[in-house]
């Protein structure tokens, strides 16, 4: 399933990384943010939507390592940020899709407004397909379910595929082996 997921996600222009532990995932994210030039100044922020994998201690640590990384996600900050980071609930092997129960608005802000979206997901949360995830979600408790398959794209001009329209133009997926399945 992991290989199928990677193949499918890469075929729609996502980048897929895999790490053994949450700690390594944090290090990888920090490295990526530094590479992207995230800094504590306008147009250079990174915004991280709250999720179970990141507690108060990790938060403070990450803020220290990466100046410009913010957890107090607002509309204005997300609109100005370079990078958005969020944890997804499931991944679908046969389409390379990420799925998230995204009622909390910050989860959607960080994955729609910035040009780069870094999505963390538990390796154990890989499911085969659409059918298996629709069986697990409950629309009565998840009022906004987001499915993300690769970065934003269009072919509206002359059918030429162009990556990055209204949403992110890059999507980096980090599979984390020791992460608990969120839902």
């Amino acid at each position, binding site marked *: 399933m992991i290989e199928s997921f990677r193949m*499918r996600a890469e075929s*729609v222009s996502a980048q897929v990384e895999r790490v053994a532990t949450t700690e390594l995932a944090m290090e990888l994210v920090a490295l990526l943010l530094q590479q992207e030039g995230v800094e504590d100044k306008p147009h250079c922020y990174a915004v991280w939507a709250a999720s179970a994998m990141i507690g108060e201690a990790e938060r403070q640590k990450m803020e220290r390592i990466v100046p410009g990384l913010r957890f107090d996600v*607002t*509309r204005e900050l997300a*609109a100005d940020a370079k990078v958005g980071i969020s944890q997804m609930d499931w991944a679908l092997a*046969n*389409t*390379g*899709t990420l799925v998230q129960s*995204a*009622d*909390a*608005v910050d989860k*959607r*802000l960080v994955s*729609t*407004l910035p040009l780069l979206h870094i999505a963390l997901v538990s390796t154990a949360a890989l499911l085969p397909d*659409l*059918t298996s995830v*629709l*069986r697990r*979600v409950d*629309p*009565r408790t*998840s*009022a*906004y*379910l*987001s*499915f*993300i*398959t*690769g*970065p*934003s*794209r*269009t*072919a*509206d*001009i*002359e*059918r*030429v595929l*162009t990556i*990055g*329209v*209204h*949403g*992110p133009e890059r999507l980096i997926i980090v599979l984390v082996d020791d992460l608990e399945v969120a839902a």
Partner: protein
Amino acid sequence: MNEEFKQSILDALANPNLSGALGRFSEAYRVSRAKAYEGIDFEALRTEIADIKSLAASQLDKLAEKFTHAAEARGTKVFRTSDPEAVKDYILHLALERNVKSIVKSKSMASEEIHLNEHLERAGLEVNETDLGEWIIQLAGQRPSHMVMPAIHLTKEEVADVFSQQVEAGQAADIPKLVKFARGKLRPKFLKADMGISGANIAVAETGSIVIITNEGNARLVTTLPRIHIAIVGLEKLIDHFADITPILTALPRSATAQLLTSYVSIISGPVPNTDGTPKELHIILMDNRRNEMARDPRFKQALQCVRCASCLNVCPVFRLVGGHVFGKVYTGGIGTILTAWFDALKESDEIQSLCIQCGNCKEVCPGKIDIPELILELRRRLAVQQGQPIMQKAIFSVVNNRRLFHTMMRAASIAQKPFARQGLIRHLPMFLGNMTEFRSLPAIAEVPFRDRIKKIKQPKCAEKAAFYSGCLVDFAYPEMGESVVRILNKAGIEAVFPEGQTCCGAPARYSGAYEVAAQNGADNIRALLSEDVKYVVSACPTCTVALKQDFIATFVSVGRIGDLPAARQLAGKTVDFSTLASQLVEQGRLKFKKGTDATKFTYHDSCHLKRTLRAEKAPRKLMQQAGYELVEMQESDMCCGMGGSYTLKLPELSAPILERKLVNIEKTGAPLLLIDCPGCVMQIRGGIDKRGSNIKVEHTATRLEECLE
């Protein structure tokens, strides 16, 4: 056909961007769609979708009720109306009441259907489409030409001009830059908008959920940033169960854009918090606009199984030449013709229904399993009933149905053409008939029709008999095809009889909507063909075969001639197309191939009716390969040749370029021989080949097969 409409076709054909971009797209689409469906049983999938949507269509009100109940329980406001005006008023009132100044929209065909933007803009609201294609056509002041790719008719240069004139001067015709420009200009509009308006691809009754799919991500912004979200949902989007999302979401992106899944899918089942912490105000409008009426119509109910993927446009040989604007309305292409007839008015479909050449490509790929060609014929029938048949058409049918008179007249015309006929082909016709021979030569009319020539064939007495049904072209233009069939049957120990009472198969009448005429043709033929005690009724024309096997029955049902059905079924049971029968006879060892014939390479053109209605495309290929011929498949072998019976007379402007593509594909194979099972296609393609001065031989499978048999 009115001049304005003809002119719009000519304008579209003269637009090189259109034919170029659409042609390339439709060729690529076939390949990429097939790839996207790899590993999926498409028939099973679309049967599941058709079942889900058909069941939903039979209980629209009940599902709307259930949806309302579920959605309202979670704080969504649901507004149900049958009236498009009420939809516009509801949105406008809400906008004014909530002090909305600016609105962002993600793609909604339902909003196009009711011309919502104009209504809101007249009241002074700022409305911005955010789907790139929709934004471009909004700025250009045009209508979408395609349901999924609204601006496919514009080149990058034209888009750059639109942006430069309407937004900011100096935009270059560079696609990535144009896309970036759109992102930059629309972003502040998203951020400042007070209201977001979207459509929905699916609405789930049991949970009150709507499913919205996009690739650009604009729907996520439209449903996230503004404090109010309104979704306009046509009733046909309703399904009962949450789990039923899967098959639709499996098919829709594959059929629409050959993607396994679009970049974004949002399933919204209730209000979620806004960015300032207040709850989102979520309104869902369930719009009827004649959908219930459609659901009550036994013929058109199936049109509600449409998932709006537009694959019927993508595979259409006519759409790829002229694009969407010729259709003149919001919904375009095959399904668009049907929706226009309902959502606007039947008479609005009068001109556009004539664009359909009845090739059946769309029916093959429709994920909702809608018989689009059949529904277009039904529109034609209703239009003919409502408006009456043109006098000219009536006169033509009365001649066509009288075989002797028909032949005499054709022959008289043929003699008049003598100076123009060479080697059995007419290359030019004088004056007003000239456009018939503009792009392909026509066959000269046979001196003696097949019905008289068969009497001269010395046939052995056989225990088994088959009735030969000739059809017009074999009878009057290509009697040699009929003679080959008779001699092949004789080789297999079957005597061919020609029931004299046989007449036109009724296809010309049926395809013109004159069902009463077609029904009478059916009844006359059934009487003639069942009067002889024969094992088979065989025809060398797939269109005639389909008439005998299927259309008589369908026509009788349509016009209520139920009493004629048993005999029609009896005839259907005996009827077989030539190649299928021949291959059965080969398998039974009753026909044997000669050894050491001078076999060549050949390519094969699939006639629409043989391939997509009779599903007999393998038989002729196999027969010729058994005879030692080498098959070289052409590109799009099953794409229509542009003949379409009387289509080529009504719309030669379209028939010619469709033929042109076919000829190019034939020539590219390098094969010296083209085989076809349909005399109509032979007429079209042989005529085209002759006009091009090409040496490729075009023959009916029967005439070539005869040479290969012992």
